[in-house]
């Protein structure tokens, strides 16, 4: 038994929108190599943070909206899984996550790995955003500065990023 070949979402989306007469969605495509920073200490001694783009929020917080929302939410790392919610323009991908948030927001696995000693420590807060933003300028000029300011308060050594 094998999994199917990896899905090509960019091509699939372009083809589907073309059939509907829509403008093509512009995915981010980097034209330069990324920076690369080696960890200064092993995972077992590091404090790990997390950002999710799945539109994660906590019961009691304001949900995300679906038109270029560049706000963020702080999700305390000890939030009960039963209080985790999602609002994202592609909510069709969140049918199961709304029943089991750990399929896209792995709070339980991270807590377990900290308990085991695999991860040195966890950030007090994880962060989320709503990844379906149509303007790369707004991602760069609004969303990323919001995340930068928040992450700077967490004193983390490593950052796990889980997209939807």
């Amino acid at each position, binding site marked *: 038994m*094998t*999994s*199917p070949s*990896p*899905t090509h*979402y*960019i091509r699939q989306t372009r083809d*589907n*929108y073309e059939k509907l007469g829509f403008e093509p969605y512009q995915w*981010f*495509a*980097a034209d330069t190599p*990324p*920076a*690369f*920073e*080696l*960890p200064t200490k*092993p995972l077992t001694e*590091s404090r790990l943070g997390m950002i999710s783009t799945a539109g994660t929020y906590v019961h*009691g917080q*304001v*949900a995300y*909206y*679906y038109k*270029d929302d560049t706000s963020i939410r702080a999700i305390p790392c000890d939030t009960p899984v039963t209080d985790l*919610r*999602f*609002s994202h*323009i*592609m909510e*069709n*991908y969140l*049918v199961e996550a*709304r*029943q*089991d948030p*750990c*399929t*896209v927001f*792995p709070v*339980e*696995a991270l807590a*377990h790995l900290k308990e085991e000693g*695999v*991860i040195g420590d966890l950030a007090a807060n994880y962060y989320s955003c709503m*990844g379906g933003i149509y303007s790369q300028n707004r*991602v760069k000029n609004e969303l*990323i500065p919001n*995340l*930068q300011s928040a*992450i700077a308060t967490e004193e*983390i050594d*490593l*950052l*796990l*990023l*889980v*997209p*939807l």
Partner: protein
Amino acid sequence: MSLIARHFEAAGLPTLILGSAIDILEAGRPPRATFVNYPLGFESGRFRDTTDQLAVVRQALTRFDGMSSPGIETLPFEWLEGWDMINERERGKLDQRSPRTTEPQYQNDADRAAAEDGAIS
């Protein structure tokens, strides 16, 4: 997500993406990524399967210590039943987006009531 990863890495913070869309990852050229070939919505493991979720996250995190140059590494997980479930649900649907609106989209009415009551500021 690659834009975010590239930003933080350039600022000196090592990052790792755990993603399930290989072509979107490749286009974004992130510093450090792992690819798990599960449907979108299951990036950190199978539905109601804490053993699988723990295994996926555990394996992904080993790449912080294990990668010495930028790249995307495929994790050895397969889930044919999950693909069957999603393919059946999405068959023939060309546009899955919800309407674009500036009104908060709560998962349920109780969430809306709690937020409007200011339960958490």
